[in-house]
């Protein structure tokens, strides 16, 4: 059993709110510690502190590692390594786009200016002639936008 095997198994665990993306590509798995073939510790962190999907993902992660035949699986959820949208992998960004969600821009500092939420690239036509309609969408991690080029409403994955 290697760390790689565990990550490979976790690629099958999906975010219940955005089923095109795995927990690995979402960047919410912060550590995998294979202590022996029978003892694996996984650390994960929620996208938003109040994310209601974290308990479901936690038990799905545990089940996936158990599926490898590991007897003792510990899944710890903490904020030691806080999630930011910069933790999304390239595959993760592509998966968001496939789900019709504009992927977040990369950013450098903690205090992000919200200007980046205006002119988010439309996931349908790619135009940046778009407006932020609301910073709150159907889940905590999404925002609402409108594209002035293809005249469609769309959702974005908001940078944190």
């Amino acid at each position, binding site marked *: 059993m290697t760390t790689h095997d565990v990550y490979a198994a976790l690629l099958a665990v999906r975010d219940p709110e955005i089923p095109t993306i795995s927990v690995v590509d979402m960047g919410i798995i912060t550590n995998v510690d294979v202590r022996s073939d029978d003892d694996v510790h996984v650390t994960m962190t929620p996208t938003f502190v*109040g994310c209601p999907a974290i308990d479901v993902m936690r038990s799905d992660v545990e089940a996936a590692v158990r599926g490898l035949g590991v007897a003792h699986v510990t899944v710890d959820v903490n904020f*030691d390594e806080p999630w930011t949208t910069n933790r999304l992998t390239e595959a993760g960004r592509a998966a968001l786009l496939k789900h019709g969600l504009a992927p977040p821009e990369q950013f450098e500092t903690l205090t992000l200016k*919200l200007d980046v939420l205006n002119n988010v690239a439309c996931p349908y036509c790619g135009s940046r002639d778009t407006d932020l309609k609301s*910073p*709150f969408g159907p889940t*905590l991690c999404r925002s609402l936008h409108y594209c002035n080029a293809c005249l469609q409403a769309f959702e974005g994955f908001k940078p944190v």
Partner: protein
Amino acid sequence: MNTAALADLCYRMADDELILAHRHSEWTGLGPILEEDIAFSSIAQDKLGHAQALYTIMHAHCGEPEPDVAAFMRNAEQMRCSHFVELPIGEYDFSLVRHFLFDVAEYVRWTALIESSVEPIAKLARKIHGELKYHLYHAQTWMVQLGAKGNEESHARMQTALREAWPYALGMFEQGNHEQALIDEGIYIGEASTQERWTAMVIELLASSTLEIPSSTEAHLGGRKGYHTDHLQPLLDEMTEVYRIDPSATW
């Protein structure tokens, strides 16, 4: 670690977040437009998450009860929330003004806590800080929209709401019983500094709203000591009803 001082701080913050989360959730399904319905529901969910994280830290480090027990099994006298969050949602103008004044304070608190000497609090603060900019953006947008860019009625209603909310907002900065220990041990900057930073930020964010910031220094105190408005107990009765009937209920 001074666990008594830490618990005192965490209960004040967590109870504020929990009770205001419940109040905000009362807009779910009733918001004036769909986007606002979603916004208040989302902000409520964020606040509930912050409260849960604080109860979890107190459970792990201060010997306090499990988060669900802490949230649902205390009566009004045991709660440490400010009167501000207990008030009914009122009209939308009041809810927006409370959202604005509270979230500026929340932003100031979590920003300061990034430097806390208590590691789990500092780590949580780094995470929560990133979420709050969306709350502030939403709140400030409406203060300016209905203040400077609205009409006579919207301006008057926001101004009245601001005047009525003000003494309650100042009550948020009532000290707990371990104020000096919190400051001395680097756990938290204390309420006087919080209020100072809050005032400066409120002035800055309202600069383009044309709303007049009240100069009154009257504050509704008592919440941090367990003395509450008559609005709190009915809220607790409603919020905890299912848990009190069946603590193992899931849905």
